[in-house]
């Protein structure tokens, strides 16, 4: 039996096991929305702006490991989605984004709501497709999911002209697809793995530096086994938080620009660096010339292009992190390998001295609410079990520093692109994926206003998110940089004319709270988290002058941190 392209689309999604589709209708996707209307397998979530659709799908993907799926219309629908697509691209998040397109006959004619979606998204997708023939639609959709979810994951855009979704074809959804030009690596090279293990076992001052790749490849348990077996110190990147339990003694916390002193000093002084699913981002390395001057470097990554891109490595291993770590564990067992215990003891003694600096300390007697204290209380009250999304800025760094993630997939933030406006819609996606779990969005008065309209979506779908707004009336990170590097000329970083967030939340049908005194922080959080079925918007009026410490200034080495 022949189906329309729109019906094929819906059937493909159902066969692919897609439960939630985040989107927004418009002219070019009307046939698809008509088909969605007539089925109940795929739930469509109506956002209030296409950017939020991509972020919600992204949050869904980050918290589940499954691909997030988006449907938007042509033209402005597609361009609005681009920020979310680029966000996912930078953090290697699997998304499949369907964009409507004007009918094929009109493509190139500057038709109403026409934009070259494939052209616009090309630099920020793993791959994209324009479907010109309805007979190719099902296979293209299968390919899109295959590409998005395998190898180094990433967003894939499928552009579907309106006449293609209206035309008819036989439906057949292939069980699997192969592509001669796309064959992601599935195993690390045994000789390289052996070489890496040998090097690790001779290390006197080893350091494990692990990133988002651990989480994307679901390799947390292997990482824990390996780290405990070796007894090495471990640090996580912003994207890698939760890949190794933060409360474990071997964990030195986050590294990089706002990482801990012990993590950065450990990096700077190590003799063997084992980078796992991390990409030597500039926010991690600081000045590349001064990076890990005494280390031999092992780098495990699924993407060969990540290896020796920024920092030349000595033992590259291309492969999925989980498989490579499994192999490493097997090799160590086979050769009955033991790390250098005596050297490690000396190394740990040094690390403990660095740790004793207590680099995350802050003024606990302040009469103003310290943002760090809010995060600490949030951690305490949710017992470290919440899914935490964040926006971008100071609050993001404080959340990363003070919320101790013991499990993967719980920390959801835009690390690579640094997209303000990400937090709230991402939290919606997380809540859809985990309806029974506690989801908190840590944000600031700047970021939250970039996707504030989604409070309406939250009401429609009764999403009981907890919004933690750290309101310092400044674009805090911008202000901090202006204070440090621009002699305190606070150009455009003061947020004037803020809305009354309590009333705003209430006008969207939610609960609003404003907290102004330090002693009210914990009780307020307790009260909010008790409201299991309501979204609570908590506006914390925090100390305006607080800065994120420690900090490696741009251009400095990892051993040149500014402490408090």
């Amino acid at each position, binding site marked *: 039996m022949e189906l329309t392209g729109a019906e094929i689309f819906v059937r493909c999604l159902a066969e692919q096991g897609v439960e939630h589709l985040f989107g927004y209708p418009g002219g070019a996707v009307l046939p698809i929305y008509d088909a969605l209307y007539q089925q109940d397998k795929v739930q469509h979530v109506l956002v209030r702006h296409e950017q939020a659709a991509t972020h919600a799908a992204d949050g869904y993907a980050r918290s589940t490991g499954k691909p997030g799926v988006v449907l938007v219309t042509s033209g402005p629908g597609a361009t609005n989605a681009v920020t979310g697509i680029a966000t996912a691209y930078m953090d290697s998040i699997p998304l499949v984004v369907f964009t409507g397109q004007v009918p094929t006959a009109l493509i190139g004619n500057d038709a109403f709501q026409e934009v070259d979606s494939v052209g616009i998204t090309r630099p920020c997708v793993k791959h994209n497709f324009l479907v010109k023939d309805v007979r190719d639609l099902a296979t293209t959709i299968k390919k899109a999911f295959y590409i998005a979810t395998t190898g180094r994951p990433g967003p894939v855009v499928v552009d579907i002209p309106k006449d293609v979704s209206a035309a008819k074809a036989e439906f057949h959804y292939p069980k699997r697809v192969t*592509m001669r030009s796309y064959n992601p690596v599935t195993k690390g090279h045994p000789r390289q793995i052996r070489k890496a293990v040998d090097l690790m076992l001779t290390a006197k001052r080893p350091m494990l530096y692990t990133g988002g790749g651990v989480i994307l490849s679901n390799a947390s348990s292997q990482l824990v086994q390996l780290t405990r077996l070796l007894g090495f110190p471990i640090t996580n990147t912003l994207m890698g938080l939760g890949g190794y339990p933060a409360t474990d003694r071997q964990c030195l916390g986050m590294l990089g620009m706002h990482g801990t002193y012990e993590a950065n000093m450990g990096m700077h002084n190590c003799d063997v660096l084992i980078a796992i699913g991390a990409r030597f981002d500039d926010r991690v390395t600081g000045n590349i010339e001064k990076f890990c001057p005494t280390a031999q470097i092992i780098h495990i990554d699924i993407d060969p*292009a990540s*290896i020796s891109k920024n920092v030349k490595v000595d033992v590259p291993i291309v492969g999925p992190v989980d498989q490579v770590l499994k192999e490493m564990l097997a090799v160590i067992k086979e050769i009955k390998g033991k790390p250098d215990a005596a050297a490690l003891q000396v190394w740990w003694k040094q690390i403990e001295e660095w740790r004793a600096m207590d680099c995350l300390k802050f003024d606990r007697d302040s009469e103003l609410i310290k943002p760090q204290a809010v995060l600490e209380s949030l951690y305490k009250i949710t017992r470290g079990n919440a899914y935490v999304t964040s926006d971008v800025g100071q609050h993001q760094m404080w959340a990363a520093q003070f919320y101790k993630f013991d499990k993967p997939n719980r920390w959801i933030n835009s690390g690579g692109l640094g997209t303000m406006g990400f937090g709230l819609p991402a939290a919606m996606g997380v809540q859809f994926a985990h309806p029974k779990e506690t989801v908190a969005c840590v944000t600031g008065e700047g970021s939250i206003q970039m996707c504030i309209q989604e409070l309406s979506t939250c009401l429609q779908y009764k999403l009981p998110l907890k919004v933690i707004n750290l309101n310092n009336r400044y674009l805090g990170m911008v202000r901090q940089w202006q204070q440090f590097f621009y002699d305190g000329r606070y150009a455009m970083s003061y947020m004037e004319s803020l809305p009354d967030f309590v009333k705003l939340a209430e006008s969207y049908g939610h609960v609003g709270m404003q907290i102004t005194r330090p002693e009210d922080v914990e009780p307020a959080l307790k009260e909010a988290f008790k409201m299991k079925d309501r979204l609570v918007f908590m506006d914390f009026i925090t100390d305006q002058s607080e800065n994120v410490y420690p900090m490696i200034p741009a251009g400095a080495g990892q051993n040149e941190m500014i402490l408090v």
Partner: protein
Amino acid sequence: MENEAGALSRVAGLFSARGYNIESLTVAPTEDESLSRMTLVTTGTDEVVEQITKQLNKLIDVVKLMDMQEGPHIEREMMLIKTRAIGPAREEVKRLSDIFRGRIIDVTDKIYTIEVTGTSAKLNAFVEAMAETDIIEVVRSGVMGIARGEKSLRV
């Protein structure tokens, strides 16, 4: 590369997005019409070229890639050059063309159009040799490359 719409722009886009140079680029379908073959000339340190290679390999439309510099290979480029050929220049241009094994492929009473193939260096030399004449137009194909001997770039 896959002979598909957009494949070329993915390669070109990659080069501009990552700040790599394209010195020349030629592309055309092969005997297998599902495939196009592209020869791209670029410059950079070993690290940059390695990174370019890896990034190109990541493109889904790139089926197979070979760094010609890694082994003995042949490079060829074609040039069409239109020049004024009046008076004594008419003889001189023909002579130069013969020296460079060029072929005059179009003639009018005032114009010669010459076809020359060879390495880029040879074509540069020809243009230089022709400096005294009145060159009207130069079209170059960009470099094509193929490995010597048994080595081949096949799918």
